[in-house]
């Protein structure tokens, strides 16, 4: 009756979110007086999971699962949950997990709560806190089914090291043709760049930057910080930056540890996308810009002067603290 956690891999390696959901699962298991079983698909080596509290890893090795396939992965998790008689299943909030979770929920007759931001308030009844209204509020949700599926928001819980030793067990799900009615034709992914979804730090620019030719300023700052770059909606609408960088209610949500907004006014639809970020820094020449009300730290000043200077200061800081 262990807690089952889906630990995502990419090219055989665990993603950072895998350790975050494992850390979360460990604490839920402690609340329920049980152990943690992880399911890892085509992982090279699962020992790292022990350091985040996983007791047992179901190791799936199957070439057909080399590329993510929501239906087949859901089927795999369903069979793992049945085998372990898991009553609580934990997944992350990656695009893949959010694709798969509703399918899994139906297969397991499990109530599903997504965007969960903290440990359950209680496990009986099972109540979790999730974000709602595009991060403008929270909602305490009770899952009333026997089996529960929880989607944990990125960076909401963090990593908690543990010293368990994870045992490994081979697990071969039975998959059929029906699981593969969707075929991946091609994947187009920027390599070597931090993505908004995975980034701990995001540097974002708005219309205040005046034009795409000024974006090297944003990129330089991002590079020093190992950050992802993002933008406000008008910036992507005008084609200064790709749509995939558009942050906000109609764009991407950002749940980073640090969000630096440069030349962005802080319209409510933009803020909805970044409310879940922990620390917000705003650089804007207008002291009345609404973003200052949502920010932790602010600089009232011209981005064209402030940003290059800040980049230099951070370079010095990094050099001294390397």
């Amino acid at each position, binding site marked *: 009756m262990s807690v089952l956690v889906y630990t995502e891999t990419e090219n055989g390696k665990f993603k950072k979110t895998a350790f975050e959901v494992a850390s979360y699962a460990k604490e839920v298991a402690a609340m329920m007086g049980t152990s943690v079983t992880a399911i890892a698909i085509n992982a090279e080596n699962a020992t790292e999971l022990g350091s985040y509290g996983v007791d047992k890893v179901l190791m799936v090795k199957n070439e057909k699962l080399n590329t993510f396939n929501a239906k087949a992965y859901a089927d795999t998790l369903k069979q793992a949950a049945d085998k372990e008689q898991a009553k609580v299943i934990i997944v992350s909030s990656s*695009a893949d997990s959010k694709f798969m979770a509703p399918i899994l929920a139906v297969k397991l007759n499990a109530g*599903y709560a997504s965007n969960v931001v903290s440990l359950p308030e209680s496990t009986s009844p099972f109540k979790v806190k999730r974000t709602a209204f595009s991060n403008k509020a929270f909602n*305490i949700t009770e899952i009333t089914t026997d089996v529960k599926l929880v989607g944990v928001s990125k960076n909401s819980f963090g990593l908690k090291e543990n010293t368990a030793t994870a045992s490994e067990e081979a697990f071969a799900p039975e998959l059929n043709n029906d699981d593969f009615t969707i075929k991946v034709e091609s994947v187009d992914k920027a390599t070597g760049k931090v993505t908004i979804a995975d980034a701990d730090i995001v540097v974002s620019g708005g219309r205040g930057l005046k034009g795409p030719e000024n974006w090297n300023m944003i990129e330089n700052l991002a590079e020093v910080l190992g950050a992802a770059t993002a933008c406000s909606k008008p910036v992507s609408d005008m084609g200064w930056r790709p749509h995939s960088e*558009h942050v906000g209610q109609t764009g991407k949500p950002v749940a980073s540890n640090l969000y630096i907004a440069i030349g962005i006014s802080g319209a409510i639809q933009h803020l909805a996308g970044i409310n879940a970020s922990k*620390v917000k820094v705003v650089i804007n020449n207008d002291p009345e810009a609404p973003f200052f009300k949502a*920010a932790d730290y602010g600089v009232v000043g011209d981005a064209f002067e402030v940003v290059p200077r800040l980049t230099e200061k951070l370079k010095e*800081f990094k050099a001294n603290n390397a």
Partner: protein
Amino acid sequence: MKILVCISHVPDTTSKINFTDGDTRFDTNGVQFVINPNDEFGLTRAMWFKEKQGASITVVNVGGPETEPTLRKALAIGADEAIRVNTEPTDGFFVAKQLAKIVADGGFDLIIAGRESIDYNGGMVPGMLATLVNANFVNTCIGLEINDNDVTAIREIDGGKETLKTSLPLVIGGQKGLVEESDLRIPNMRGIMMARQKKLTVAEPVEATKETTAVKFENPAPKGAVKLVSPDNLDELVSLLHNEAKVI
């Protein structure tokens, strides 16, 4: 091709979010309701299929009579008919069950839903619906082409996109990218007049259990005031980010 577009009726993006009845209900007082933005992109893509390839469009909403203006707006944009399932949409699974009945009765080939509603942000209805009706499913869909039974869909993944091949029947969770924002339709006078004549059917709900309950709402804790740093003293900002916020 028969297309069903699922329309969620949500507070306008600028709404103040407040709660009543001891923080157990969303306070709709003074709130303007609109078509969920993700659904609006889907509806426009459906119009494209209708105009370019021939298709009929039915829009559906699970909700009380107060959602009818939102459905009428979808009709004014160009949907052919509307269905309202007359019940309160309290839980994603419950809504998916209601929609599954409409899909089974209507024999739809393509079901377009939004990636998520911007009120409860559950992001579960499209995938649950697809699984209940045994259709193919593509989430966070940002591109869709259909030739006879063959589907090419593009979905957004973390850090990029992925092109998929599949077949009808299909459910998508759509979003911006399905069409350009500049292509979104604003109902014109003729559309609004015609919408009045179009069929809006009220369907009674099917029995379905809820799996989750929204017990209580909370507003975020009020934020402390911003700490302003002079542009001439950026060392202080670096120090605050390192020592106080501990993010660098």
